[in-house]
Each structure stands twice: as structure tokens, then as C-alpha cells.
């Protein structure tokens, strides 16, 4: 073989090319693979973090009487869409001050409901009782009913749904 005349032998050329092409192919597949696997961690969730939800006209809410409002929001995780329903008890005091209580029990997230005859919110799961202002009467719950942040725009009551 007249390899001495050439700067590089056929064998080392082939070896070099194999390494080079192998490296390129590995990089073309390997680098996107990292982005592919880390994708869910790197991308922001599509649903907006916080969302103002319209409940209804403030005018129509009776005074001193917990009024129930509900709404549904769908959340998308990956390719799966889940519909969550939310319930709010709105209490309008005589002076016009509003409270917007979440109907999720602070104990283990069962739903509380207003019992007109007792004048209490009752959680059926572990017999939790809450007063009209959300405070604890009796039961295992660790804290009073949670309140949504609310605002009034053009006479419409809105609550802030915070993604946690």
C-alpha cells in the first residue's frame, strides 16, 4: 500500500469518519432527547395561574343569608383534561360587607352545606360545624372556612380562583 505518500491512511480516515458521524448522529438524537424528557418541567402550565370568576350581581344577593354559587373550571395536565367544580357561600351583611366562603371543609376537603334550620354550615364527613361567619363551632376542623378574595366590578361579584 502506498500509504506513505498520503497524509492520512485509509484506515484512520474511515475510523475518524465513523467517530465523527457517530458523534453527530448521537448529538442529533441525544440532545433533543434531553429537552424531550425535561419538557414538562420546563414548560409553563397552559391554564392561567389566577382567574377572576364572575358569581353574579351583588344586588340580587339576600342580606344575612348564605347564598350558594358554583362554577366549573377545567384544568389540563399533559393531555388529560379534568373538570373541577367549586362552590362559594356568599354572605352579605346588613352594612353591605361581603364574605365569600369556600365550601371546602378545612378538615379533609369534604363539601360543607348551609343548614337553614340550624343556622350552621355542616360537613357531613366528620360532623364539622361552622357558624355563619365561617368560624368553628365544633368538630375536627383545624381552622375556620377559607375565604376567596373578592371584588365588585360593575355591580358583579367576582372571586379570585388561585391555583395552588
Amino acid at each position, binding site marked *: 500500500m502506498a500509504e506513505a505518500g498520503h497524509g492520512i491512511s485509509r484506515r484512520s480516515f474511515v475510523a475518524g469518519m465513523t467517530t465523527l458521524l457517530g458523534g453527530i448522529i448521537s448529538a442529533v*438524537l441525544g440532545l433533543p432527547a434531553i429537552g424531550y424528557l425535561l419538557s414538562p418541567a420546563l414548560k409553563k402550565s397552559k391554564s392561567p395561574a389566577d382567574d377572576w370568576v364572575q358569581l353574579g350581581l351583588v344586588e340580587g344577593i339576600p342580606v344575612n343569608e348564605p347564598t350558594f354559587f358554583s362554577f366549573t373550571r377545567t384544568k389540563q395536565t399533559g393531555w388529560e383534561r379534568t373538570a373541577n367544580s367549586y362552590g362559594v357561600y356568599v354572605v352579605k351583611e346588613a352594612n353591605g360587607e361581603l364574605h365569600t366562603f369556600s365550601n371546602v371543609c378545612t378538615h379533609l376537603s369534604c363539601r360543607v352545606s348551609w343548614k337553614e334550620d340550624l343556622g350552621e354550615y355542616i360537613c357531613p364527613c366528620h360532623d364539622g360545624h361552622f357558624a355563619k361567619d365561617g368560624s368553628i363551632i365544633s368538630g375536627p376542623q383545624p381552622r375556620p372556612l377559607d375565604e376567596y378574595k373578592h371584588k365588585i366590578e360593575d355591580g358583579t361579584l367576582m372571586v379570585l380562583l388561585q391555583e395552588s
Partner: protein
Amino acid sequence: MATRIYEWLDERLGLKTIYDVVLDRKIPKVNWAFTLGSASLFLVVTQGVTGILLSAYYVPHPEQAYDSIQYIMNDVSFGWLIRGIHHWGATLMVVLVFLHMLRTFFYAAYKYPREITWITGVLLLLVTLGMGFTGYLLPWNQRAFWATTVGTSIVETIPWIGTFLMEALRGGAELSTLTLARFFSAHVWILPAALLSILGVHLYLVVKLGISHIPEKDE
């Protein structure tokens, strides 16, 4: 330093022996058609890598299979690339494996002492077709569903046992969640396990027996 590490490893692992035996083999004067086997092997590797990556998102469930693939294609970074390579690699692999078989056939390379290499090669062709057939259903779109309906119906035409075989393939009389689950299982576990086992024998024989030369005029 690198040399000393290499020598330390070589002494214990026999790296040079592996290189000499597996890669530095004597081969006769051949042509580009003799690269088809290596090309098929390369595709086995890329199909394996991209397939493993796809399993990070794909869900073999009738309600989620299609959506999970839409998610891979539209939302996951480079998902289109990973799935694209797997999709086109699958087609290309069937073509290359078939051409590889034709080359072996026309150069009469299946004869003594390479009969077992040929037989394992035929099995590998069948497994490759099986991978194509089972993988085709996994997107769970209209084309996949009806292609598999037709494909499994063909099995039904076999006399006596046809209906039984078809229901064994489908996991029931109709295409269902059972069909998708068992095709998925076949695609990612059963057939790959078969493929790698047979491929091990195939490659061992290629290394052990060497490559046959192109037949001469008077042979």
C-alpha cells in the same frame, strides 16, 4: 494516563481481543450491498432509543392513546422529532431488512455453513414485520383501528382455527382496550425480547463465520 487506564481495563476486560474479534475481522472484497445488515442494526438501535423515549408519554389506553400522541407531537419539546424518527425508522427498517435478505439470497450467502444465520435472519424479518404490525395500532386513530381490523380479519380466513387465532390476537371478538393493551405489550416487550435474543445469535454467527465472498462466475 489515558493509556494506563486503558491498559488496566484491557488487562481485565480483554478490550483489544473484543475489538480484534468483533470489529477488526478479515472480510472479502465486497460492495455497498454488504452494509445493509449494519444499517438494519443501526435502525434497531435508533428504534429502541426513540421507542423508549416515546414510552415516557404514550399511554396505551383507548381514551388516552390518541391524546397522548397529540401531546407528544404538539406540546413536548422535540416530540415531533422523536416520533418522526420512530415512524420513518420503522418503515425504513422493513425496507432495509428486506433488501438485506435479497442481498443474502442473490449472493447465495445462506449456504453452508451459514444456514442458521439465514434461519435466524428470516425470523428477524418476521419479528420486524410483527413490530410494524403491532406498532401501527398504537396511535389509535381511524387508520390504525381499521388497518388492524382488516389485518386481524385476514387471520380469520385460516380454515378451522382462524376465528380462534383472530380472537387470540384481538383479545376478543372486537377490537377493544384489550387489543390495544396486548399489541402494546407485544410491541414493547414480547417482540423486542424476541428480536434481541435472535439478533444475538445472528450477530454471533456473522462474527464467528465471517462474511461470504461474492460468488465467482464458475461457482
